[in-house]
């Protein structure tokens, strides 16, 4: 009778582990989100009837023309200040000059000397939606409340 020596060593088979991991990775890759979607919240510039307090808040109006010229105006709620609007043209690519917009916005905010929290964006009809979003993105970076007015024709602006 032959005696068979029993091995006491313990062996782990890694092939099933690799198979399961490959399956998990394939599944997670298919459901993974690679493009993060976000949103920019804006308030309606029309509608909502608020109780009248008799005092108009200070606000800044940003008009965007179809030529991508941007005009930044300050509306004084107390009618004490009369600041000249700031204007600048498009960049070399024919789009809204965002760098100049940031500079001029900071200039207007410091000139006003008030804690302006409300900004209204008034684009012209043919201004692309993406460029309007870029303007609102800059305003959001300054933690300002952004209002969007329905677009208007050139004559109105």
């Amino acid at each position, binding site marked *: 009778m032959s005696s068979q020596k029993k091995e006491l060593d313990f062996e782990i088979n890694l092939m099933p582990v690799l198979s399961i991991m490959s399956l998990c990775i394939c599944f997670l890759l298919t459901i993974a989100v690679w*493009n*993060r*979607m976000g949103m920019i919240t804006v308030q309606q510039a029309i509608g909502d009837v608020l109780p009248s307090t008799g005092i108009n808040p200070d606000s800044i109006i940003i008009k965007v023309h179809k030529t991508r010229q941007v005009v930044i105006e300050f509306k004084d709620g107390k009618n004490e200040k009369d600041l000249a609007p700031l204007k600048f043209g498009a960049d070399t690519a024919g789009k809204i000059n965002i760098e100049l917009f940031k500079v001029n916005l900071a200039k207007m905010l410091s000139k006003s000397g008030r804690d302006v929290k409300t900004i209204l964006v008034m684009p012209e*009809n043919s201004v692309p*939606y993406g460029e309007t979003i870029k303007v*609102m993105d800059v305003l959001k970076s300054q933690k300002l409340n952004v209002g969007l007015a329905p*677009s208007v024709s050139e004559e109105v602006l």
Partner: protein
Amino acid sequence: MMQPTFLQVNQYSPLGSVQTLGPQSSAKASKKMAGLMITSLVDAFSILVIYLLFGTSTNGQEIDAKIGVRLPTATFSQLADQSITLKVKNHRYFINEKSINKNQIADELRRLTKTNSEVKLKTPPSITIVADQDQAIEDLNPILLAASEAGYSQLKMAVQHEGE
């Protein structure tokens, strides 16, 4: 005479020799074929699985931006949440994937406000606008006016988040 089995013929395969993780006896010390190191592969796979598990976010709203709609990019955007989705494409309007005439947007929003209990819970009520970045802002006018009529004071513009 019995034919040798597959295992017997290929007992010296590179994978076969290392597929089991276990102590090696001195008798097997001399191998004529180089084996594959798969323990490092298991380590790499584990790290990949853990990263993907943490990276897969289940929060936020799934916005179905169809092929042909390029969302504008923004740096300072918030995470999208559940709200009524209004899409604009080629002068056509869609509310929650349902095509609608621009004159009926306000009525449809009012109807959704009444029936949708999720929207009722959110104050103030809001809608998410999905539009192509090259679209003229003029196409959004019916939405802005209809939203105002239906009592939606807050608008959310869907964007593609860009790193700072």
